């Protein structure tokens, strides 16, 4: 569960990125976070992942209060999250399997746990036949599936996807979004940051719109880009 209570964020250069944001995401929800460039979406993601700290306000992520979290506790908070990036961020010199095992070993999983978990996750994202391929040998959609598998592999309670379809064509984007929906149905909370109004509108999930650092709407089954919010 995520809770932001009256959160403000001002960067060192004086930019006021968030101005009193309140947001609650419960376990098992699927939420789209939408808004134009510079609206504060990325700041929300960075606050949730512990990359930056809020200037003011309260922030809770999966049972961790980020207002007074010790730096050495941040890794353990992050283990409750899976993060997907627009540019995939795969390690080019590692195979699909190695990219996933790398993420598992990073949190201290044993080789046995790695061998047991990775085939299951690869099957879930439809890449069980491509475990030995390198990222450069895969299409954009497949690379994003690897990134989703990597986010899933440590069994997080929540996945945060930052523009996950930004580099994909419409058909691949739809496939990725359907995959994220399926993962959500299996019980993982999903927070998807996106610009793509067609996708948002098609899935009819909860939509939180942010603009100029303020939440301007929050509606389940909402639409994006002014059609209906």
């Amino acid at each position, binding site marked *: 569960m995520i809770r932001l209570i009256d959160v403000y964020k001002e960067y060192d250069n004086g930019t006021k990125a968030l101005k009193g944001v309140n947001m609650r995401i419960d376990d098992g929800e699927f939420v789209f976070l939408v808004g134009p460039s510079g609206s504060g979406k990325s700041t929300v993601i960075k606050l949730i992942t512990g*990359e930056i700290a809020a200037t003011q306000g309260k922030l809770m992520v999966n049972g961790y209060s980020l207002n007074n979290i010790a730096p050495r506790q941040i*890794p353990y908070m*992050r*283990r409750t999250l899976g993060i997907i990036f627009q540019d995939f961020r795969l390690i080019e010199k590692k195979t699909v399997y190695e990219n996933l095992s*790398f993420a598992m*070993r990073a949190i*201290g999983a*044993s080789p046995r746990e790695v061998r047991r978990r990775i085939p299951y996750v690869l099957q879930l994202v439809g890449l069980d036949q491509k475990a030995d391929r390198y990222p450069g040998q895969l299409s954009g959609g497949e690379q994003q599936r690897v990134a989703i598998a990597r986010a899933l592999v*440590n069994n997080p309670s929540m996945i945060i996807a930052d523009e996950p379809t930004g580099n994909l064509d419409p058909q691949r984007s739809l496939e990725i979004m359907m995959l994220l929906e399926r993962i959500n149905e299996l019980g993982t909370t999903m927070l998807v940051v996106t610009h793509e109004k067609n996708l948002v509108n098609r899935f009819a999930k909860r939509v939180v719109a942010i603009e100029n650092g303020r939440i301007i709407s929050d509606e389940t089954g909402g639409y994006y880009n002014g059609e209906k919010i």
Partner: protein
Amino acid sequence: MARRFDAGYYFSEGFHSIFTHGFMSFAAVCMIVACLLIMGSFSLLAVNLDHMLGDLEAENEFLAYIDENYTEEQALGLQAEIEAIPNVSKVTFVTRAQALEDWKEGREQNDLLDSLQPEVLRDRYRIHVSDIEQLGQTVDQVELIQGVADTSVALEIAQGFVLVRNIATGVAAVLIGILLIVSLFIIANTIKLATFYRREEIAIMKMCGATNAFVQWPFVVEGMLLGLTGALIAFFAQWGIYQLVAKLVIQGNGLSLVTVTSYLSMARNILAVFCGTGALIGVGGSLLAIRKFLQV
């Protein structure tokens, strides 16, 4: 998933990373070798200088003249008293006759010299000291012995030796210290370049929930292995250079004033110091280099 110290994983990652980023590893090893060779050469120079000064010190002595009224037997009786002085390492009694012979030696033969009688000289002791820095005090103690009429000592020369040795040791220590710090930063920058290519990996690990220690350990292992590799190469290269320089020094050393300490006699110490320093600058450099990238 249990939190644990996975030494096998850290070693495997650190070892493989050396070959994955082969060029940067090569550059880091070259830097370590160069730094150790410079430090090693200065250290060996300091060691040789110290040995040479030690040899010169060992030859340092002063003379204690015995009262001319003392018979040879009475003079000999003072030996035990002189030997009892703490800083005295060796005492040699020289009779007046022997002293005259020594004095005549090396001088041209002539009648005037032949007419000299031993009685114009005094019996004496040639006294060696163990610590040249306490020469002045030792001379004072010898002069207090009844029967010692006078002493002859080149105190300025002795103090000169001490000064030269102290300056040489100080300069070498300062130079080695500066080189050590410079090496650390050069290695840190070299490894930082290697780390820069891997910042994405580090960021991914951090985003997955890896602790700083987990991220650092493979780099520590890598730095240590690079440091030890550099140390071994530097040890053998230093050996070759030292032998070559020693040969040239001995060949051009007509007066035999310069002595060269054998490399083999110091080999174990050099290897230990090189390995320790190599590992230190490898690990220290790695930790310095990675510090910035951990702030994700």
